[in-house]
């Protein structure tokens, strides 16, 4: 396993909710990354993030790790959940909140977009 793969693997496995994104939650540098941050913030979910723009090996490595060609990528309890499209679709249907609750992760906000 390359350095990048082991860094990614460790981050995915040691954080309940892990978001690989462009930029940071405070300063997202991509609309799609920003959307996922807003959804997680709306649900009041604590999450860890990694800025793939800060490390080219991580940026490429994460695509290989999940066999997924784009950023952002959301992981819950070590499992790849999806990119922006899937996270938004799950949020709008309420599936994201139930997925988090079933994984034992507390959401401090309402389950669905009102």
């Amino acid at each position, binding site marked *: 396993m390359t350095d990048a793969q082991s860094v990614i693997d460790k981050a995915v496995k040691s954080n309940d909710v892990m978001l690989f994104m462009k930029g940071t939650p405070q300063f997202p540098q991509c609309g799609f990354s920003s959307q996922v941050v807003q959804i997680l913030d709306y649900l009041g979910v604590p999450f860890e993030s990694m800025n793939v723009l800060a490390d080219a090996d991580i940026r490429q490595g994460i695509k290989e790790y999940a066999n*997924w*060609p784009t*950023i952002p990528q959301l992981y819950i309890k070590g499992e790849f959940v999806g990119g*922006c499209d*899937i996270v938004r679709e*799950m949020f709008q249907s309420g599936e994201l909140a139930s997925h988090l609750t079933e994984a034992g992760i507390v959401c401090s906000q309402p389950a669905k977009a009102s």
Partner: protein
Amino acid sequence: MAMQAAEIERLIKAALPDASVEIRDLAGDGDHYAATVISPAFRGKSRVQQHQIVYKALQGRMGGELHALALTTAAPQD
């Protein structure tokens, strides 16, 4: 770097001959599209798996030549 909507549709249909494919150009720059793909091949597959099938059909262009493809996938209603 950009792609034409027809090229995206051609690639997806080459991999999924029975799919219905609808492409919408979101920004007119050849880089930002939305696509709705309906195919029996998606039946029983998770959303992630369905999207991976479409990305594979695009033969590595996703995230490179094609910056953004807002994907909606589903199996046809019975």
